[in-house]
């Protein structure tokens, strides 16, 4: 039995990401490297107004003064920023005739995830029907949203159609001076999403980048801005459970959320980008700055993330709790396998009175990966009666991986209550034995146990996302548990 277990472990931990890159995109390339010319090129290409070009240039000039941060528990070869093409507008995807031409392994994964046929076509670039279908779906959604006054479009579109809103809110949460990668993004961002929920509107559907037809190929420097006016509500989903094929090695995205009085924003992410092969070659470097501000009283921002992909994840979704009685939440599951490295966590900055925050983070590391939680909870003097609870658990699968916890707690007044607890352990032999005794094989048992372990977070995902994420976890673990 031991031997077969080991076999499974072997098989599972040695399993490779089976979905290589297939798409071949013709591009309008910007000149390689980063310079003011590159930025002018990008801005001109996108017909941007003057203020945006100015913003980009300001960011670029500031970026020149910055050095790449090294504090994270990540190791990667130095990135040569002059060796990157910062803008590549996708022209048209090579279209496949039918699903038969698609890698059968990929189709299998889609089936496991329960992705519908049309969606499968869309992901794999089979397009025709799917696109028509998705356009019609999208149109329906657009109408529903327009009725309510909700703006949901690409960032470029927003720049043209709603320059005032963009001007007002862009950079208000993540200023261009924020950090190395945010500054880089501010200089060269390609595209992204813009979402505006007017006063008193409760968005009737879960907004997803997926429904936005031009969401595909937003490029490596994505920028998202979500503004929820007074008394509004929106649930926003980014990414999807399907394996993402992406030719860009470096990703530096920004997400900004503004929640005004009584507004609530729920942001869910599932990230499953190419993690590199089992020798640790290739894979996406993902450096993301995500931050929301609870600007008004009684506002609420909630981040939920399931991170299974990318060779390197550097991501700290944060909430600035400025309004009184505001609430910030962070729920995360991060899975790393092989040579993946994740340094992720959250920042909760309490400024408003009675502000509350919750951090639940579940790290799962397997193979030779390293998984770190890094978080900050800070209460300023003004944050009377602030309350935080953080819980960070790590699960180690295999003896060559690492799990680390770096919480920073900074309290500046006497009425705050901040609690942090963290545990690290391996998967329990008793639980495994119990499952196997009842005829559940090791692999399924591990999937089951890990899903149970991550349940607290998965429960926070929007319904259909949750189902997929759960399956995704099992699939990731099929190839990752030891």
């Amino acid at each position, binding site marked *: 039995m031991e031997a077969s277990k080991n076999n499974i472990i072997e098989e599972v931990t040695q399993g490779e990401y089976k979905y290589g890159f297939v798409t071949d995109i013709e591009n309008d390339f910007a000149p390689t490297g980063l310079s003011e010319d590159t930025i002018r090129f990008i801005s001109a290409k996108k017909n941007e107004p003057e203020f945006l070009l100015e913003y980009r240039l300001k960011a670029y000039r500031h970026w020149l003064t910055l050095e790449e941060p090294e*504090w994270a*528990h990540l190791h990667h070869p130095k990135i040569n920023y002059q060796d990157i093409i910062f803008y590549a507008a996708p022209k048209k995807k090579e279209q496949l005739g039918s699903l038969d031409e698609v890698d059968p392994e990929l189709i299998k994964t889609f089936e496991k995830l329960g992705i519908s046929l049309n969606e499968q076509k869309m992901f794999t670039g089979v397009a025709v029907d799917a696109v028509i279908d998705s356009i019609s779906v999208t149109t329906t959604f657009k109408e529903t949203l327009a009725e309510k006054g909700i703006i949901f479009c690409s960032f470029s579109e927003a720049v043209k159609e709603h320059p005032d809103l963009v001007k007002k809110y862009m950079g208000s949460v993540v200023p261009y001076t924020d950090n190395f990668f945010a500054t880089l993004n501010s200089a060269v961002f390609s595209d992204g999403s813009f979402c505006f929920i007017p006063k008193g509107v409760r968005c009737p559907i879960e907004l997803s980048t997926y429904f936005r037809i031009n969401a595909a190929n937003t490029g490596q420097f994505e920028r998202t801005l979500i503004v929820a006016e007074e008394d509004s509500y929106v649930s926003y989903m980014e990414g999807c459970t399907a394996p993402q094929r992406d030719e860009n090695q470096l990703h530096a995205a920004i997400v900004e959320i503004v929640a005004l009085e009584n507004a609530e924003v729920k942001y869910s992410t599932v990230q499953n980008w190419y993690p590199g092969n089992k020798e640790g070659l290739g894979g996406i470097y993902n450096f993301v700055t995500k931050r929301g501000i609870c600007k008004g009283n009684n506002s609420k921002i909630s981040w939920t993330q399931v991170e299974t992909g990318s060779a390197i994840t550097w991501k700290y979704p944060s909430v600035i709790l400025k309004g009184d009685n505001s609430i910030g939440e962070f729920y995360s599951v991060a899975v790393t396998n092989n040579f993946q490295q994740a340094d992720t966590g959250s920042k909760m900055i309490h400024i408003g009175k009675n502000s509350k925050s919750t951090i639940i983070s579940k790290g799962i590391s397997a193979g030779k990966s390293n998984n770190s939680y890094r978080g900050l909870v800070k209460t300023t*003097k003004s944050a009377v009666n602030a309350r935080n609870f953080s819980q960070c658990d*790590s699960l*180690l*699968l*295999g*003896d*060559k*991986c*690492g*799990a*680390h*916890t*770096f*919480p*920073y*707690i*900074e*309290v*500046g*007044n*006497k*009425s*705050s*209550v*901040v*609690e*942090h*607890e*963290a*545990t*690290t*352990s*391996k998967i329990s032999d008793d639980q495994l034995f119990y499952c196997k005794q009842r005829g559940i094989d090791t692999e399924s048992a591990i999937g089951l146990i890990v899903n149970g372990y991550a349940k607290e977070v998965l429960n926070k995902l929007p319904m259909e996302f949750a189902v997929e994420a759960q399956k995704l976890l099992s699939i990731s673990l099929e190839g990752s548990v030891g």
Partner: protein
Amino acid sequence: MDTTIKDMDLKSKLISTFHENRELFYKNTPAEISALKDIAIKDFERLGFPHTKLEDWRFTNLANALSHDYSLSIKPEYQEIDIESIFLCEVPDMDTYNVVLLNGWFASKNASLSILSNGTIIGSLAKAMQTYPHLVKEHYGKYANTSKYGLDALNTAFSQDGIFIYVPDNVKVNKPVQIINVTNSEEKLFVQPRNLFIVGKNSELTIVNCDHSLNHNVKFINSLTEVFIGENATLNHYKMQNIDNNSALINSIYFHQSANSNLTTNSITLNGGLMRNNLNIALAGEHSNADLFGIYLIDSNQLVDNCTFVDHIVPNCTSNELYKGIMDDKSRGVFNGGVLVRKDAQKTQAFQSNRNILLSDDATINSKPHLEIYADDVKCSHGATVGQLDPEAMFYMRSRGISEDSARMLLMYAFANEVINKINIEVLRERIDEMVSKRLRGELSICDQCVLQCKDKAPSVFNIDMTKI
């Protein structure tokens, strides 16, 4: 002759002082240690003083403490009179072997090295280097990390004296060794004592270390201690810190634990301007155990920074850490606790806990308990809390007629008591217990702030005529 620093960058001044007085620093040191000094001064030149850009020093800014005109105590101040009789100090009912460091120099009426009947050696490190160079060489400089920490490098380069304790194998030292580290000078002093403790196989030792200052002049103390704990040996280490608010004290200790060894450290910080405790524990032998306890009660503008690092190098070791703090006024507490479980250090159990109470809106706490784990069969947890006194407990007591002040006192006392109870020497525990409750009542006078209880002539203690020394 002291070298006074004026209008000069302290770092470059220190370096030039070192080179100008080379023969002084190299005098009587064995060749191996001289070689360490050579490396250390270069390391210091490269590293300089720690600054807030360094992860471990983010919350503790030395800039202000380093901005003074310090005089370096690079030559011993010879005492002709009995310093212990000036202090007239003793812990009531506590029988100890007493050794005193004055401004970083061994100061005792007794011989600078005393050998007990069981072979234990207690005394001056400078003297020990000459008398027992083989003992010193074996461990000196082996555990501190001069290539990484500027202050370690500085101490290694400059250190000339300190306390040396050697316990041979199979010896149980019957009385605690009490080390009293006193600073007293009319000038702004920069002192760098260096201690080395060696506990042999199957031996047992208790050390009580008191940091104490006698006046309010600005001081910078950069103390470094290396401790080797042999197989199956036990060391209980108590550290009391009660210095004045103008002092900056860096207290770096490196414990190196062999197999089956046992270490208990207890840091009690009741007063001090800027205090940084670097506590490093290397669990280098299997089945060794380390218990780290600490309590800090601070107010006014004080800053206490406890930076602990427990390194689980081999399998089957356990560590348990509990630090508690109460911050009042504009004080700041920093807890920076690291646990590293290295690859293959399986069956490790490491627990870490930091609990804090803030009593004022101007007080702050920066807590960073972190775990780095590279082995899977481990049980590790850490927790940190910041809060106030439990309102329900307060209500319970108020409803039983206990005044608010008394109730608050009682709860704070109970909070601190968890750590105080870990002290194994009864008389010391009682004394500290009393001091903590006095401290919480705000009644702790400067004289009380020491385990040394001065006999009825408290004020005179602060008026030592230093010309006599």
